[in-house]
């Protein structure tokens, strides 16, 4: 076990993948000498060379599009998109090519591409640096979408994503990059919990609280605070957003009868909607109350002085828990 930051844990995972498979290549802006703007690729170009850790010109569509060509050639590219809000120029290549080539070619061409995306807010940045675009990609068949919430997962799941033969979007909660945690580097990604399985991080009996990425920490804190009030929250870290591991969520909701989903992304058409709908379909007769979503608002990501009003925090999550429990809450008395 080693104490390391989230960013260092990903770095160590990337290093292992580069060591274990000569076909792994990294592509991105500023990932070489600088080590990435968040230093996630620190030292990798020095150790593996400019042909395996490639500083690219500033063109996101080309970064992803050339990764497609490398995959055609048998490579296993790992792409860094510098910030969430910079991914859109690559949208066509991701949605029309990366996601569909395996299907298009009837399985002849594999697209084992990992697209790393630092995402989410809370770091006081200007526009385009704090977005949560995951739902655009969970809506796209052919992609796998995962998030990580702690250094150990960050280390293990990045290796699982890279060795996966399907394309994977790997969302990194950038406001947690400097959080430290214990990482066991000897965990074998092949025998570890698969990346498409959710994990119950806090067991509880009264309400199922589903979170992912940066809000898993907030959700755990909320569970501690709720416990002080005598409420037992079961916190689930979804980890995989496409596909969602509904078996784990269903088992929890059948036990608690109540569901709160939280994410930083806006509400409409988001993961919360998908989870709430699917759980309602599968657990309707176990539900004691309507599922509750505690999410960012349907607004462009706001200027940083007000971003904490947009991001679900501990108290907003607890307010949602109160709603699920029928306890007095900020919307008491409102219909619908």
């Amino acid at each position, binding site marked *: 076990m080693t104490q390391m930051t989230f960013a260092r844990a990903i770095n160590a995972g990337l290093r292992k993948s580069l060591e274990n498979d000569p076909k792994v290549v990294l592509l991105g802006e500023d990932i070489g000498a600088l080590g990435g703007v968040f230093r996630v690729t620190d030292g990798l170009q020095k150790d593996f060379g400019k042909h395996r850790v490639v500083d690219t010109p500033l063109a996101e569509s080309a970064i992803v599009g050339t990764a497609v*060509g490398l995959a055609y050639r048998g490579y296993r590219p790992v792409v860094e998109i510098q910030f969430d809000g910079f991914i859109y120029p690559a949208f066509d290549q991701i949605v029309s090519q990366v996601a569909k080539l*395996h299907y298009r*070619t009837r399985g002849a061409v594999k697209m084992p591409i990992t697209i790393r995306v630092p995402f989410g807010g809370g770091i006081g940045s200007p526009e385009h640096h704090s977005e949560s675009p995951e739902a655009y990609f969970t809506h796209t068949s052919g992609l796998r979408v995962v998030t990580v919430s702690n250094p150990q997962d960050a280390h293990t799941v990045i290796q699982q994503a890279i060795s996966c033969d399907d394309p994977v979007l790997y969302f990194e909660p950038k406001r947690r990059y400097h959080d430290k945690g214990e990482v066991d580097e000897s965990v074998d990604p092949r025998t570890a919990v698969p990346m498409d399985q959710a994990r119950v991080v806090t067991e509880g009996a009264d309400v199922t609280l589903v979170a992912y990425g940066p809000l898993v920490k907030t959700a755990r804190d909320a569970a501690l605070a709720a416990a002080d009030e005598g409420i037992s929250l079961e916190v689930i870290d979804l980890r995989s957003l496409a596909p969602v591991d509904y078996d784990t969520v269903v088992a929890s909701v059948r036990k608690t009868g109540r569901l709160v989903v939280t994410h930083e992304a806006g509400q409409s058409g988001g993961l919360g909607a998908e989870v709430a709908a699917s759980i309602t379909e599968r657990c309707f007769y176990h539900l004691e109350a309507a599922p509750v979503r505690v999410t960012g608002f349907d607004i462009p990501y706001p200027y940083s002085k007000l971003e904490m009003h947009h991001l679900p925090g501990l108290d907003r999550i607890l307010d949602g828990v109160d709603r699920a429990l029928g306890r007095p809450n900020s919307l008491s008395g409102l219909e619908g």
Partner: protein
Amino acid sequence: MGQGSASAPIAADFTGTGGPAQTPGRAAELVQLITPSGERISHPEFDPLLQDITDEQLCSLFEDMTVIRRIDVEATALQRQGELALWPPLLGQEAAQIGSGRALRADDFVFSSYRENGVAYCRGVDLTDIVRVWRGNSSSGWDPYSINMATPQIIIGAQTLHATGYAMGIQNDGADSVAVTYFGDGATSEGDVNEAMVFAASFQVPVVFFCTNNQWAISEPVRLQSHIQLADRAAGFGIPSLRVDGNDVLAVMAATRVALDRARHGGGPTFIEAVSYRMGPHTTADDPTRYRDANELEDWAAKDPISRVEALLDRKGLLTPELQQQVRDKADAVAREMRAGCTTMPDPQPLDIFKHVYSTPNSWLDRQQDHYTRYLASFGDPAEAVSEEGAR
């Protein structure tokens, strides 16, 4: 000839960095080796590249061009007869496709648009595979690795990035093969094509940008895409370019060989503009009479790529009735085989739509497939399940 003859050796030994390519900044001149009336013009820089093109080879180029025109005519007929949903004709672009396609080596890799069916023929494609996509039976015709040609790209220009990335892989592997990407004049306005040229130049990877300027992007003329000749754009990226008569099979072949040779020897990318004309519609769903002048079509008909080779063969005394018969027979045989493959192609099965979305099991999709399987089973015949009037 034709299939399997794609890897003719390069006659002249080029250093790669030299060669008769345009230097950045100089307006490109149009290279022509066969005039529309079939006169062979000698060219001190290109002729050495064509020393292996014997009379027999010239006859074989004539045959391949005739065959792919026949494929095109047959596919258009199949569309009109309801056997294909759509077809993108290549009529008029035979020299651009055969001249370049025949210059490639088997281990080169092609990333093309949907119109390069003649190039696919040069790669040795199974004839039925040419029409599979257009019949609606599949999203791809062939296994790309079986003929080293990617599934043709429908998103305009997207494949140029794939070729550039593939070439980065070739460079990493230390191989001397080349990635060749085909696209049209319209694609040169796309961001992807421009980004591909930036990456290709920065990394000096072995890729050839083969732009068939057929003058029209559906209804938009090339002058809407560019104020300068397309070949001249390459200079801005630091990429050498060549501008050739795209209806001249020898000029195209020579230019492609220059570019391939440069790429194989570490000289990086080349941009080729093959100036041609889309004699037919964009696809069988298009109506060019709405947007272009009949006189223009006539002018280009006079520059037909096959007629001029025919005229050249005639001047050389090679256009014998035997050759003409042999070429006709070959074209007819190919067309027959393609038609038979098309009309006897087994229909895909309903549950095929779930195949290959992922390469590993996916819980979401497995559930949807399971549910749809049960739904289909509730009908006697799966076809009833999708009847517009309903069948329950």
